C-alpha cells in the first residue's frame, strides 16, 4: 500500500475516534481520488453529519445548556479578510498559537473545498455593509484536520469610518463526551412526575419502525392526494392508530398531519417561487381542493400570502 493511502486511512481512523468521543463536527479530508478509500471517506462524512443532526435535535429536546457550556470561536477580519483578532476558544479548539493566525488570510483556516464559497461571501460582504448571514464552513485545525462549523458572518461597518471589518463567529454547545453524559443529564432532569407524562415508547422494535418509515414515504409520495384518517391509514399499513400516532411523533418529532401539512407547504413554496402555474393549480398539486384553505395555511407557515411569496421572487 502506498504511503499516501496509509495517511488517508489514518485520517479516517482519526474521525472514527472523534465520533467515539462525541466530536461529531470532525471530517475526513477529501481528496481527488476515485477509489474505495475515498468511498469510505465520503460515507464516514455523511454518516457523521446524520449523527450530528440527530444528536443536535436530541440535545435541543433534552439538554438545557448554559453559556459556559458553549464554545465560542470568533475571528475578526480586516478589509482584506486578514485575521486581526481571535477568541481564546479558536486557540483551544483548533490547536493554533495566536501568532500562527494573526495577519494570515482567513482562507488559511478554510478547507480548499470552501474557497469558492468564501470568495462569493467575500464579494457580497464588500458590496453589503449590513451583511449578516449564516454559512456552514469547514475549518482546518493546526494538523489540517477538517472540522464542520456553522458560522455567523457579520459585516461590522460604522459610518464615519471606512474601516470595514468582518466578524466570523461560531457558537456551539460543548459536544465532547456528550454521548457518555447524556444518560446522566437526563436522569438528573427527570423526576417521577415528568416520567409519567412522557409519551409511551412504541418504536422499540424494527418492524414497527419499518412500517412508520413506509407511512412517512407514502405521505411524501402522495402529497396531492387526500390522506385517510389515522385508523384507516394505520390499518392500510398493518399497524394500529395508537402505534401510528405516538410512534410517528417519536420517530419524526411531529404528528402525521403536521408533517403532511409542512411537506405540502414546502412543495407549494417551491412551485410558487419558480413557476407561473395558477395558485389554484398549485393548491391542487399540494392536495388542497380549496385554494383559500391553501392560502390560509401558506400564510400561517411562511407569514406571507402565496401571491406575496411569488411577487418577492
Amino acid at each position, binding site marked *: 500500500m502506498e504511503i499516501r493511502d496509509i495517511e488517508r486511512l489514518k485520517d479516517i481512523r482519526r474521525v472514527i475516534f472523534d465520533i467515539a468521543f462525541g466530536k461529531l463536527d470532525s471530517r475526513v479530508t477529501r481528496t481527488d481520488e476515485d477509489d474505495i478509500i475515498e468511498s469510505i471517506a465520503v460515507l464516514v462524512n*455523511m454518516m457523521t453529519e446524520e449523527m450530528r443532526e440527530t444528536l443536535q435535535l436530541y440535545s435541543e429536546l433534552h439538554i438545557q445548556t448554559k453559556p459556559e457550556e458553549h464554545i465560542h470561536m470568533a475571528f475578526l477580519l480586516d478589509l482584506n479578510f486578514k485575521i486581526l483578532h481571535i477568541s481564546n476558544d479558536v486557540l483551544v479548539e483548533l490547536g493554533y498559537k495566536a501568532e500562527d493566525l494573526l495577519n494570515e488570510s482567513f482562507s488559511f483556516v478554510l478547507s480548499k*473545498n470552501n474557497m469558492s464559497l468564501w470568495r462569493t461571501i467575500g464579494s457580497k460582504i464588500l458590496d453589503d455593509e449590513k451583511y449578516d448571514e449564516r454559512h456552514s464552513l469547514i475549518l482546518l485545525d493546526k494538523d489540517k484536520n477538517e472540522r464542520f462549523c456553522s458560522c455567523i458572518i457579520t459585516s461590522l461597518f460604522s459610518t464615519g469610518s471606512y474601516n470595514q471589518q468582518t466578524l466570523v463567529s461560531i457558537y456551539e454547545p460543548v459536544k465532547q463526551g456528550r454521548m457518555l453524559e447524556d444518560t446522566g443529564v437526563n436522569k438528573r432532569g427527570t423526576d417521577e412526575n415528568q416520567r409519567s407524562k412522557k409519551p409511551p415508547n412504541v418504536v422499540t422494535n424494527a418492524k414497527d419502525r419499518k412500517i412508520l418509515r413506509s407511512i412517512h414515504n407514502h405521505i411524501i409520495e402522495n402529497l396531492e392526494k387526500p390522506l385517510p384518517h389515522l385508523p384507516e391509514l394505520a390499518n392500510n399499513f398493518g399497524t394500529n392508530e395508537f402505534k401510528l400516532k405516538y410512534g410517528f411523533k417519536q420517530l419524526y418529532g411531529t404528528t402525521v398531519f403536521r408533517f403532511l401539512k409542512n411537506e405540502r407547504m414546502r412543495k407549494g413554496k417551491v412551485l410558487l417561487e419558480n413557476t407561473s402555474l395558477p395558485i389554484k393549480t398549485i393548491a391542487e398539486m399540494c392536495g388542497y381542493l380549496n385554494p383559500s384553505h391553501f392560502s390560509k395555511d401558506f400564510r400561517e407557515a411562511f407569514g406571507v400570502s402565496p401571491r406575496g411569496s411569488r411577487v418577492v421572487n
Partner: protein
Amino acid sequence: MDRIHETIYCKYWIADGILFCLYKPIAYITLQIARNIVSSRIRFQENETFLVFCDTRGIKDSSKPARDYLAREGSTLAKALVIFDDRKLSNSMLHYYLVRNKPSVPTAIFNEREDALEFLKSNDINI
C-alpha cells in the same frame, strides 16, 4: 434538441422529452447552491413536468442540508429521475444518499447511460 440553458452550476437541455441536467465541477454543494440548482431547473421547465436525467459526475462533496434539500425539492415537477455517475465513489455516495433521503418520485442511480434512459422511459407515466 429544443432548448438549452446554462448557469454557473449546471447546464440544462431537453431532448426526446427528457430534461438533461449536467452538473459542472462543484467542489462543495451548499444549501444555497442546491436552492439555485433546483430553482433554475424548475424555471427552465416552464410549468411542464419532465423525466429528469442528472449527470452528477461534477459533484465532489456536499453538505447535509444541501442533500436534504435536493432530495426533497429536487424532484418537484419531475415524473421520474435518474442519476448518472460512473465514478467508483458515486456508488457509495449516491446509494447512501438515496437510502437516507427518499425522493417523492421514482429515482435510481446508474453508471451506464443507456440503463438510465431505459429506467426513465419505463417510468414515463402521464401526470
